[in-house]
């Protein structure tokens, strides 16, 4: 299915469908996420049965602040589409339902998203840090986190780390 056809097909059920540069993006509410993904997975002419990636972006000073993106792929029809969920800055941490039930591969992807962005996936069987040390404080890929480098040493001088340097 071409991107335009796919977008038209999705608009039959979902109100917020974008199509740009051959990519289809579907924006849903957090409450309707599981239902939407289940629909995309089980409908025979969509059949998006593979969750190929799950990422988060952080836009500080905006509402919604976090966008959780689910990249779906259909092996049968060969099309891809992206489902996005916007999360407001309050409450912190943001909550979004886990999709480990229809997509078991989401287990580690959601752990990674939680690790780096602090998004809590409700209903995840084992929501722990996966890449940072267990005792790490904070969620490093949030824009509000410091880059936390060290000063580079020279003979008689120091260059401060990148995030503490005046321009």
């Amino acid at each position, binding site marked *: 299915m071409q991107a335009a056809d796919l977008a038209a097909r999705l608009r039959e059920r979902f109100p917020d469908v974008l199509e740009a540069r051959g990519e289809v993006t579907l924006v849903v509410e957090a409450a309707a996420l599981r239902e939407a993904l289940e629909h995309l997975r089980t409908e025979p002419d969509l059949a998006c049965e593979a969750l190929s990636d799950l990422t988060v972006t952080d836009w500080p000073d905006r509402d919604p602040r976090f966008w959780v993106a689910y990249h779906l792929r259909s092996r049968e029809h060969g099309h891809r589409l992206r489902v996005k969920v916007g999360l407001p800055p309050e409450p912190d941490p943001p909550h979004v339902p886990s999709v480990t039930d229809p997509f078991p591969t989401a287990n580690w992807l959601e752990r990674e998203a939680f690790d780096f962005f602090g998004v809590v996936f409700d209903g995840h069987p084992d929501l722990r840090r996966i*890449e940072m040390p267990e005792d790490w404080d904070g969620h490093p890929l949030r824009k509000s*986190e410091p880059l*936390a*480098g*060290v000063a580079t040493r020279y003979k008689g001088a120091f260059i401060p780390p990148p995030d503490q340097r005046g321009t």
Partner: protein
Amino acid sequence: MPVERLPGVHTGQSAADVTAEVERGLLLSTVGKAVAWARKNSMWPATFGLACCAIEMMAAGAGDYDLSRWGMEIFRASPRQADLMIVAGRVSQKMGPVLRQIYDQMPEPKWVISMGVCASSGGMFNNYGLIQGVDTIVPVDIYVPGCPPRPEMLMYGILRLHEKVQREARVP
């Protein structure tokens, strides 16, 4: 304490005793040098490839550059059989404790080469994820710069380490 009374320096006894003392020292220092020579010529590295530097480390071990010319072709998977750790690559915060544990498991005497800028100082990755220099967790003998260093560069670091081992030869 006067110099004459210092044990082992000068006993203040007969000339024959002094000669014997000197000979003992000479003999042992020669033994120390021999031991250092043996150590430097069969230094077994522990496998600690962490990133792209490991590819160059493997190239240095392979036939074209051939680390076995200095008796160190066997990269030991067990730290208990190794006495040189070549930290090849960037060390993440989570890898730090593992690195330290491997180092602690190596038998004495042991040496560490920090290969590449990432291991030496964090390199261009001056951020939260990496340990900014492995010398914050293990004592480093030789730093090899480069990103990644050529096999020759690593071999030059190894030669410098050999020199250092020979220089610091002492009675065990």
